[in-house]
């Protein structure tokens, strides 16, 4: 049985879709079977970031309604054989996703894939709660900025109360993915530091993704950043985060920090 991951944040625009695509492609490059699922019904974008927007025929809602079978809706990535996308639909119907439907689709995906990565919509409405409902692990994407940290705190509260795991009295595994981090600004005292965010949210760190032009370049081209430019700083950070998700112990480095590389390499414990 595969592992179900929800990529969530509460706030919009912090990098959920970018991170879903990048982590998905990074895990698929380890030859593991990965399905990335877009839960943002009405405002789908994962297809665009993955460069598959012109290949969408059926979507998640079609599968839930029984208009299409799951294999018909899954789009295989052109670059990676083991990476698949299940797009969201563009319908404006808010009730298109049903609890039973999502449960059935996730259950089926778990049988065929090692990883099922659910890209949550922003907000705390039905779409977001359904995306996290069946997750085994949550990746909380946060920017080092007050409104993002506050919304992440709210989402962490929901992960601990509104998910199946929480309702069964189990502990929800949560990881922090700090994105758009600028170590120079943090060093200068103009941006929350990694430790500040970790102390406030108190969940383990999965990775630090540096603010970088490469992320926009990759989405312009329709490729996950871990495929577009594998040697770029954000790609390296996502590869490390993916290894940690897969259970490897990799020390967390702060990207872009010039001094004390060795100190940072060994001074910080990974999630």
């Amino acid at each position, binding site marked *: 049985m595969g592992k179900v991951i929800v990529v969530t944040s509460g706030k919009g625009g912090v990098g959920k879709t970018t991170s879903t695509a990048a982590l998905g492609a990074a895990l698929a490059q380890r030859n593991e079977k990965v399905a990335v699922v877009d839960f943002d019904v009405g405002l789908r974008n994962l297809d665009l970031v993955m460069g598959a927007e012109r290949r969408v025929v059926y979507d998640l809602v079609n599968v839930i309604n029984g208009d299409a079978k799951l294999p018909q809706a899954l789009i295989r990535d052109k670059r990676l054989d083991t990476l698949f996308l299940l797009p969201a639909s563009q319908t404006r119907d808010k009730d298109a996703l049903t609890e039973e439907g999502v449960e059935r689709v996730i259950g089926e995906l778990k049988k065929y894939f090692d990883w099922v990565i659910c890209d949550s919509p922003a907000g705390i409405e039905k779409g977001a709660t359904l995306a996290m409902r069946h997750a085994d692990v949550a990746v909380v994407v946060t920017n080092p*900025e*007050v409104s993002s*940290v*506050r919304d992440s*705190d*709210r989402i962490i*509260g929901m992960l601990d109360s509104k998910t199946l795991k929480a309702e069964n009295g189990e502990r929800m595994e949560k990881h922090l993915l700090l994105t758009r981090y600028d170590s120079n600004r*943090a060093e*200068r*005292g*103009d*941006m*929350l*530091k990694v430790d*500040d965010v970790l102390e*406030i949210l108190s969940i383990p760190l999965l990775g630090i993704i540096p603010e970088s032009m490469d992320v926009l370049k990759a989405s312009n081209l329709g490729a996950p950043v871990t495929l577009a430019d594998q040697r770029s700083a954000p790609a390296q950070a996502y590869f490390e985060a993916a290894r940690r998700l897969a259970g490897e112990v990799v020390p967390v480095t702060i990207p872009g920090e010039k001094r004390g590389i060795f100190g940072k390499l060994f001074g910080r414990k990974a999630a």
Partner: protein
Amino acid sequence: MSILRLFTRSPRRSAPAARERLQVLLAHERASAGSDLTTILREEILAVIAKHVQLDADRVTVKVDRDENVSILEIDVEIPLDAARAA
């Protein structure tokens, strides 16, 4: 250049302020368990009063106002005239 910057560096940094504001805010928000507290209170208060007087569920408002030092729980229940007479 770098020596110059040592002396001209702006003394006010914004990150510590962000950190402090978040810590205060989140302590409050976590204590109230999201915003569900008022919903729970509203339902339970409504149930208790409804045992004795007939009332309209829409005419009950529960508000929690938080200040630095005190929190005020404000309950506003409108009881219909005939129900009040019967009681």
